[in-house]
């Protein structure tokens, strides 16, 4: 045990803080870039596809999705949600999109392009262009088109085909995906070159791609260590530390060093049997996007002995693959990005389950991280993070006898999440987890 009674319930990793600070750094750098006459871009989470290209072109990128989470976590999202409402956007749209549409409206209509003074982390400056992405999120076109209209800036949509498991194994499918991806990235490079008025430094892109892959490999290894019992790292640390790998926030060489530091700290905890919470009674997997406005909710659950040992597949790095022999950096980037989308497919096919990108991984997580239960967070305003959850719940029960608790809420809108109601369900769910723990043991499982 590493946490003393009366101290904070979750013993946060020291190595997490400098990684978390990368987010602030990114936003400040983007504002500084605009002030210095350099380009800044608004990007969607694109799973390593467009980011390395922008990074190699020295373009600062900020992420409206991430900014929606920041606005929620810092308590300023509501005024942007209200503003989006007043602009006429339906309230059931994605919480991230509403927050940033409200932000864009305030910035462009009320402040004549100036960053709102209340904006956390220095705000998002007016972008040179916007880069949306087809990976996972189905709001990609309309949300960024609307933002582009407010900002009077062009929008480049990055395309990413996401096949089903059976389709993926049609002969030649993967190669055609790679070919399409590389061609699309070449067009994107040409677009970016035209926007910033300079040519791509291909050696720099090569180095950037390799660093991105290595950063994510180390980050993957950190999360593998969390299979230890007691688990040495809580989901709250994961969410805090992920942007440097997921969004490539900050300097990549520095991020690599910081993730290596984190690996050492987590490994040290494993060696010393040091858990991240006082008493790990239940190990849980969390899906999908957390209620950013109410993260303290997890501290309450930690007090009950709930340790969140694995989470949000969409935020996890791809399973490492060897791409060292792929000489073209665009092909390497494409294959790495595709690995995020299809990296679990072979396994999922063997298990005869569906949902290789977003559903199956939870089966693997629950089995390998030895989870007693799953906390599912279907979002009222997000289809992409919600529609697979009933299937996840059924699959976990059918294949592993791991029960799920579903708590509806929202990523940004505090009004749609009721932590008291959620906590009231925690106690009976413990009884459910105990019941299935006995059943698994009777069936010969080791957890």
């Amino acid at each position, binding site marked *: 045990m590493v946490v003393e009674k009366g101290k904070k319930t979750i013993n946060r990793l020291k190595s997490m803080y400098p990684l978390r600070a990368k987010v602030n750094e990114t936003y400040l750098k983007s504002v500084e870039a605009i002030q210095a006459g350099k380009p800044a871009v608004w990007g969607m989470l694109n799973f390593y596809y467009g980011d390395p290209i922008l990074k190699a072109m020295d373009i600062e990128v900020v992420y409206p999705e991430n900014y929606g989470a920041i606005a929620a976590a810092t308590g300023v999202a509501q005024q942007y949600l209200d503003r989006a409402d007043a602009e006429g956007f339906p309230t059931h749209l994605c919480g991230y999109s509403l927050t940033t549409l409200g932000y864009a409206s305030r910035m462009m209509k009320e402040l004549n392009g100036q960053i709102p003074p209340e904006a956390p982390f220095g705000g998002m400056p007016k972008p040179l262009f916007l880069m949306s992405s087809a990976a996972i999120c189905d709001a990609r076109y309309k949300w960024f088109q609307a933002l582009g209209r407010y900002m009077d800036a062009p929008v480049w949509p990055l395309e990413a085909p996401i096949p089903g498991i059976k389709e993926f194994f049609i002969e030649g499918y993967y190669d055609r995906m790679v070919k399409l991806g590389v061609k699309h990235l070449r067009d994107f490079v040409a677009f970016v070159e035209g926007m910033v008025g300079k040519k791509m430094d291909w050696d720099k892109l090569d180095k950037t791609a390799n660093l991105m892959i290595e950063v994510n490999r180390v980050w993957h290894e950190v999360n593998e260590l969390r299979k230890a019992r007691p688990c040495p790292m809580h989901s709250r640390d994961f969410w805090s530390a992920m942007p440097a790998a997921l969004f490539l926030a900050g300097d990549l060489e520095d991020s690599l060093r910081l993730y290596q530091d984190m690996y050492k700290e987590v490994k040290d905890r494993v060696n010393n049997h040091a858990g991240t919470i006082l008493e790990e009674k239940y190990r849980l997997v969390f899906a999908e996007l957390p209620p950013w406005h109410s993260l303290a909710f997890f501290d309450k659950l930690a007090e009950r002995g709930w340790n969140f040992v694995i989470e949000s597949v969409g935020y996890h790095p791809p399973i490492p693959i060897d791409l060292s022999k792929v000489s073209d950096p665009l092909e390497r980037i494409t294959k790495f990005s595709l690995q995020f989308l299809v990296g679990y497919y072979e396994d999922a096919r063997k298990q005869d389950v569906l949902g290789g990108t977003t559903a199956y991984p939870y089966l693997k997580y629950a089995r390998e991280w030895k989870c007693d239960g799953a906390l599912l967070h279907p979002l009222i305003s997000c289809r992409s993070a919600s529609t697979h959850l009933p299937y996840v719940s059924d699959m976990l029960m059918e294949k592993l006898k791991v*029960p799920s608790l579903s708590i*509806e809420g929202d990523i940004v809108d505090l009004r749609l999440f*009721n932590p008291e109601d959620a906590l009231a369900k925690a106690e*009976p*769910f413990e009884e*459910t987890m105990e019941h299935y723990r006995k059943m698994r043991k009777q069936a010969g499982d080791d957890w």
Partner: protein
Amino acid sequence: MYFAGVDIGSTMTKVVLMDNSGNLLSAIKGPTGPEYRQLANEVMRQALEQASLQIDDISYIVATGYGRLNVPFADRQITELSCHARGVSSLFPNVRTAIDIGGQDAKCMKIDNGRLTSFVMNDKCAAGTGRFLEVTAATLGIRLEDMGDISLKATKKIQISNLCTIFAQQEVVALLSRGEKLENILAGLHDALASRIAALARRLGIKPDLVLTGGVAKNTGMVRAMKESLDCEIFVPEEPLLTGALGAAILAKETYMKAVAAGEALPTKSRRLEKATFFS
């Protein structure tokens, strides 16, 4: 030895007293009322009076329901889901699915040998709860307890398309002004509520025997609508409001007897029947 279960729901407070053989000595229910959670002492006093017992005679007390944390004389708090599961199982040993529709929520429970193994509850909205019927009864100017019997006289069911309680009220008023018969509107309302709760229950996977409890189970129209929606036989306890308190009393007895058998002394609270205070 005597044991008590106290269930403080959003609408009703219930107390069950039993002896160490499991014989029911008294079962009392009273409105929780606006003094919500402060009146457990009053309902307990009535229950003791009915059983000719004093509060000091009670060996162990379990509180459950939304107000369970505000019963100063309760020795232990247990969630209403666990208590309902135990209470229903004691009345219907073959129960596998229980649906409790109370004033504030609807709970669907999967039960195995008296143990809660899984559950789902409605989220944040009054549309799947007894409140939906309360509000509608008030809008229509009829007594809540008459709604079910009136609806059984329906010659057809009027479809209620709004699931939101407030909008459904408006729809009901509009239907009345259009000349639709009250019984037909009520049959439609029960149908709307039943199909919503049935969808919730199906998430669990319904297995017989299925038992319906909670205040709404006293509504004959709702019981019929639930049977039609779920297409299965539904059992209703004689007193469907008391299963939570009954389960709490059973768990009080079990907890106490287990401790006695192990030679352990259980900590108990002061047996003074006082109001709960929130600001001291």
